[in-house]
């Protein structure tokens, strides 16, 4: 009996010893773990204890931990998510909760991966979490993600640029083909038109004067041929750029000649304000003649019910004012010529598209006239602008730099 008791005592001591050693081993492992370890009651989420690492991580003393619950060490806004993860871990559905925001005693937040395992301590169901600070990793990840995003953005931008460049190339190629086509079509059509023109002229020369109807019809043919010829000219001018042959020229002369060459109906009154004192401008007289003819024709066509065409010219001192790269204000004298009509005007919507190729509101026209006009003005170092009010009329303004400006 005594032997048995002794054995039993010895056995218990042995067991106590083993338990002590086991506790010791646990404490050593627990305290010296690289991760922050924290044991929490699954039911009330209160902490039981933690190791020195977690207390350093959180900024709480080890003795303070039993006063805290899960809600105290996570930002309030993330608590719902954290608790959901907690429950999952308690049910062993998830082992590691990644990048969980953790709030320190001082309120600052870091991110931790929490590797948890349920354990039973003194009959209480607990969860032991191993916290590993991943803030640095998260920052790196964030940086990598940002870099990736930027890279993707750059790739997108580059792709867009490439696509745009390709589109530009295709457009340029199309325009080049259009140019060649225009050249050959223009040539092929100009000859027959010329023949028709000559035939009409011949018939008018030999026809008896009194045949009014035939004369009227010949005039119709002639004016239609003129329209066709003008369209072809626009097409040809659009498809090639002529270098201007500029020399000092009287703009009044050009305007007068242009007015003379345009058929202006009787319902349109013409008012020209071209002072003799205007200085000569350095321009290509033929190109500028085309410019004024086109503007005058447009003005006349805008006044189907009649109206008044006004052409005025004056010198101004501020050509450079609107010039972005000019530093000297008011030292760029220019000649301003305005062609105004009292016609139907241009809607704000159409005004935006006015100088786009192939935009037209005319029954017969291909929408190149103003494009060529603008290009001619710019080829002569000038600028073309337009103002218009629907129902009131339009004013096209040409600014041409004067000699002093070029010096």
């Amino acid at each position, binding site marked *: 009996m005594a032997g048995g008791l002794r054995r039993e005592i010895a056995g218990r001591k042995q067991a106590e010893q083993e338990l002590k050693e086991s506790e010791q081993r646990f404490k050593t492992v627990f305290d010296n773990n690289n991760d922050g370890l924290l044991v929490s009651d699954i039911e009330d989420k209160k902490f039981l204890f933690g190791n020195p690492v977690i207390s350093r991580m959180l900024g709480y003393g080890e003795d303070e931990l039993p006063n805290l619950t899960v809600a105290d060490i996570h930002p309030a806004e993330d608590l719902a998510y954290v608790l959901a993860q907690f429950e999952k871990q308690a049910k062993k559905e998830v082992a590691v909760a990644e990048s969980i925001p953790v709030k320190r005693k001082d309120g600052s937040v870091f991110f931790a991966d929490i590797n948890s395992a349920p354990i039973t301590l003194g009959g209480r169901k607990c969860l032991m979490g191993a916290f590993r600070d991943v803030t640095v990793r998260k920052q790196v990840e964030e940086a990598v993600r940002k870099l990736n995003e930027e890279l993707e953005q750059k790739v997108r931008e580059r792709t867009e640029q490439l696509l745009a460049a390709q589109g530009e190339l295709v457009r340029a190629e199309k325009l080049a083909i259009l140019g060649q086509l225009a*050249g050959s079509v*223009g*040539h*092929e059509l*100009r*000859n*027959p*038109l*010329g*023949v*028709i*023109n*000559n*035939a009409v*002229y*011949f018939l008018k*020369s*030999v026809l008896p004067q009194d045949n009014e109807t035939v004369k009227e019809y010949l005039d119709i043919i002639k004016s239609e*041929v003129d329209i066709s*010829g003008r369209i072809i*000219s626009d097409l*040809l001018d659009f498809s090639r750029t*002529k*270098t201007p042959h500029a*020399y*000092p*020229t009287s703009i009044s002369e050009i305007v007068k000649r242009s007015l003379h060459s345009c058929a202006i109906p009787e319902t349109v009154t013409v008012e020209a304000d071209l002072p003799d004192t205007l200085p000569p401008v350095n321009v290509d*007289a*033929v190109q500028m003649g085309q410019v004024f003819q086109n503007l005058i024709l447009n003005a006349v066509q805008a006044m189907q019910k009649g109206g008044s065409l006004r052409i005025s010219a004056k010198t101004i001192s501020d050509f450079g004012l609107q010039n972005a790269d000019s530093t000297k204000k008011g030292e760029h004298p220019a000649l301003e010529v305005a062609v105004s009509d009292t016609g139907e005007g241009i809607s704000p919507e159409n005004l935006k598209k006015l100088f786009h190729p192939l935009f037209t509101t005319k029954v017969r026209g291909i929408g190149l006239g103003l494009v060529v006009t603008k290009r001619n003005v710019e080829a002569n170092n000038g600028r073309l602008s337009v103002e218009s009010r629907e129902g009131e009329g339009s004013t096209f303004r040409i600014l041409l730099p004067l000699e002093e400006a070029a010096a």
Partner: protein
Amino acid sequence: MSAVMKILVVEDDHQMSKTICDILRVKGYDTLQAYTGEEAVTLIRSADPDCVLMDIKMPVMNGVEALRMIKELSPEIPVVLMSAFATEAQITEAQKLGAYTVLDKPIDIQMVLSFLSCLKREKSILIVDDDPVFSKTLKDILQSRGYCVETEADPNKVLGRMEGDYKLAVLLDLKLNNRDGLNVLKSIREKYPTKPVLLATSHQEHISDSLKQGLQIGAYACLYKTLETETLLSTIKEIRRKKLSALLGEPFEMPRRIVSEGAPARDEKP
């Protein structure tokens, strides 16, 4: 130049050629037709036309190449080119070779007709000078070169002399007896703004201010007496050439220069 002008039409498009020639004949000209550049060159040799109207785009020998050969054979013959789509290089080359202009097709036939009628017209010049000897000698020289010359010593009668009759140019002495030449110039400019007026003066040093004024008022050029005949003739030739070109739509500009002895006027022909 014979009474009826003979126009050589060089055009590979038969319909175009036919219609142009029919119109020219209706308007009183003789016509010759060539359908290639080679034919044109042959006709220049054999038929001696007064003027050439030629297309640029033709097979084998184009109009500009034909122009070069024509000008070698007959440097003075007036040539007008036409084209539906000439390149800038062709236009420059044509003008360098002495073509009056390159007309865009469809050509303005009225323009060609006024050019031809001006070509046909007498080349008439009015000399306004109160020195009878000077007027006489100059008249003789110009007439010997085929110009029709009138002289006028009375400045008050100048405008009357210009009425009705076409004058290519007026040669005006700056120092007239009782009336300043500049005033005469002003009155001519007012009534005939594009009429070329050549100012002539014998007093080189003293009146250079007046000369400058004259150029400002719009004299075509100023010449010093004693006039170098060749200088005067080349200036008049230049005026005629410019006037004809202007009829074909080329811009007419006044050079407004002072031509002094030893520095002859720039002749634009090679």
